[in-house]
């Protein structure tokens, strides 16, 4: 009788604990989803800005057609990418092509002084920053989630309900937003 009661208490305790862990894991993954949509909003904003940019630049540049074409191609690739890894790769490529485009723009003083161009450049920089921040938020959340499903004893619950670790949204340009320099 007593043993039965103890077993019952233990069982209730275990079920309660499993539920708690499960709920918090679900909460974390919902937050990751939200963080991802944040990135998506910013990426979409960038994709929308690029046609305007290309239109503005086109009139001034006669000899740099392939730079422009590469930007357009990179944009299409980025829009078409479906999973997170591909998307990260395509966006990196897009960032690179945009950077080379802005390097070319430097050679055209008239274009540089163009109001429209200045505005677009500002907006793209701002969007770029926001992408960086939203990526940071996303990666922080993913890290929290991945750590959570790997540490004991939560990993047992994670295994039972088959939570798998999520992909980070990584960038190749590591120098851009790294932890502060550490000196010993």
């Amino acid at each position, binding site marked *: 009788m007593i043993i039965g009661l103890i077993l019952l208490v233990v069982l209730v305790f275990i079920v309660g604990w499993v539920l708690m862990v499960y709920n918090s894991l679900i*909460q974390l993954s919902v*937050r990751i989803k*939200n*963080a991802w949509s*944040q990135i998506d*909003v*910013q990426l979409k904003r960038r994709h929308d800005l690029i046609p305007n940019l290309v239109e503005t630049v086109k009139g001034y540049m006669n000899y740099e057609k392939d730079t422009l074409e590469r930007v357009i191609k990179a944009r299409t690739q980025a829009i078409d990418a479906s999973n997170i890894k591909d998307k990260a790769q395509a966006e990196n490529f897009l960032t690179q092509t945009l950077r080379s485009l802005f390097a070319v723009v430097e050679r055209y*003083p*008239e274009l540089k*002084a*163009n*109001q429209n161009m*200045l505005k677009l450049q*500002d907006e793209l920089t*701002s969007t770029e*920053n*926001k992408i960086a*921040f*939203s990526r*940071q*938020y996303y990666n*922080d959340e993913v890290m929290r989630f991945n750590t959570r499903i790997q540490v004991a004893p939560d990993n047992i619950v994670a295994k039972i309900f088959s939570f798998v670790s999520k992909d980070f949204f990584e960038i190749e340009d590591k120098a851009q*937003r*790294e*932890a*502060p320099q*550490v*000196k*010993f």
Partner: protein
Amino acid sequence: MPFSFIEIEQKKSRLIFVVFLFLVFFYFFTSWLLLLIVRNFFFAYAFKEKFIFTFPSLNHSLITLSIAFLIGLFHWSFSTSNLIERISNTIDASPVDTKDTYHEYLKNIVDEVSVAIGGRHIEAYVIPTSALNAYSLVDFKDNAVIGVTEGLLARLNRSQIEAVVGHEAGHIVSGDSFNTTVICSLSELYKETVSQLGQATKEFRLRGKGGALILLIFLVLTIMNFLNQLLNTFISRQREYRADAIAVRLTRNPLALAEALKLIAEKWNGSSTKGENIESIFIVSPRHNALDENLSFVSDLFATHPPITKRIDILLNMAHLDEKTLAENIAHMVRVSPVAKAEYKDKSSAKDKRWFVFKRNQWQGPFLLAELKELEGLLPADWIRIEGQDSVHEAFNDDEVSRLFGNKDADKGEFCPCPRCHANLSEIIYEGVAILKCDYCEGAFVDHNKISRVLVRIDKTFLQETIDLAATISKTKLKPESLKRIPSKDDWALDCPRCHKKMRRQFFVYSYPIEIDRCFSCDADWFDKQELEVLQCLYQNKDKFLLQDNINTQI
């Protein structure tokens, strides 16, 4: 640190409930005490009865309790309605002006940080003072506000401002911004009452009667002051450390925050931020007297903010740097002004740039911009060519020339004639602020709320001529007799460009004796050529000029 909004919600409602209970209890206690005093001493004093000490009965106490509850409820509902608007009014803060380069820049930073905390919308506000400070507010409807002062915008660089905004965002996500907002608005009402009651007592004292009343009021004052202190203890001072930590996590840059704090502490110029009553919402206390930096136990107990040096130490520890490097970093600080870009645009339209115009089947010109303006029959669709360039484009496609059409066409926009030469004023960006300027006489028409922004910003490099003029004016300021203006009929000579009423000639203020023409209905000033620059120069170098004058008089 709880980061999920649900956890914060729970924590927040619990604390707020405790605060409310405390409020009711306090009212009960105070009124019960008053009852006790009135019962025992006042009657004895007034009716010369025999003095017997008694406690109020249970019935009376219960009535007091219900009255206290009602008063508490009233106080609560008054203080918590329109939280953000009321507190913003107290400290003179207003939402960003989208036409202002600096404000746009702040809005961008706030937007970026709001993305970093997971996309919660945050409104950006600005306080027009030269002090360096920042604050955050959250109300019951979860509207969030981050505000900074003009001085902070003008003096810190982008990563430092980002760190400060990150700190404020830290308050918002950790939920203590909400607590602080509510508690501050509760105690703000007290301070108001206390100061008004103080006035009243003074008047009574002057008339020399009502001894018992004075005693009563004095008692109320003391208790209310005490309540303020108690309310403030609900605001944890750990919150500043916590917000610093979140800021570092958001921006990944402890050094920038340390720099910002150091600069804020150093370049502090006291009195300019209002809102000493509600100091808890700020990043550093607007009072910031010696008490705050004193590490003794008593001062530590009553200060609303932890000492800045302690905060900087923690941040430097995170960055593995020492104070020497921090000082060096600040000395070599690079600040890219958001206005610099706008000025680059202005430079491209250098005065000697000239255009050819294709008219009557031939190229005419070249003309200067001012000449083009006078040219009859120039149409937006006309072909023009910049001197020294091959490309031909339509006039409306040229940034500078297209501006002329707007000016010529009075119907399109508001026609603002220059009070001196009656040409239309054009909107230009000066120090990031959109002001109206005459292209001919170079006078400027500036709204009052914009003047304070211009004065604070330090991007303009002054001509030597301007500096000399400002120094001279600063000298004459010391002789009050030279400041007397003789009224003349010219004092009402100029028309306001906006409302066309007469403007009055007067000094800007007596401490900055520059003659301007003021329109009282538009709340704006007309500056003749260079006067705005001189005023700005005078304001920014006031200490330097004063020092020079002192040296001169000593010699």
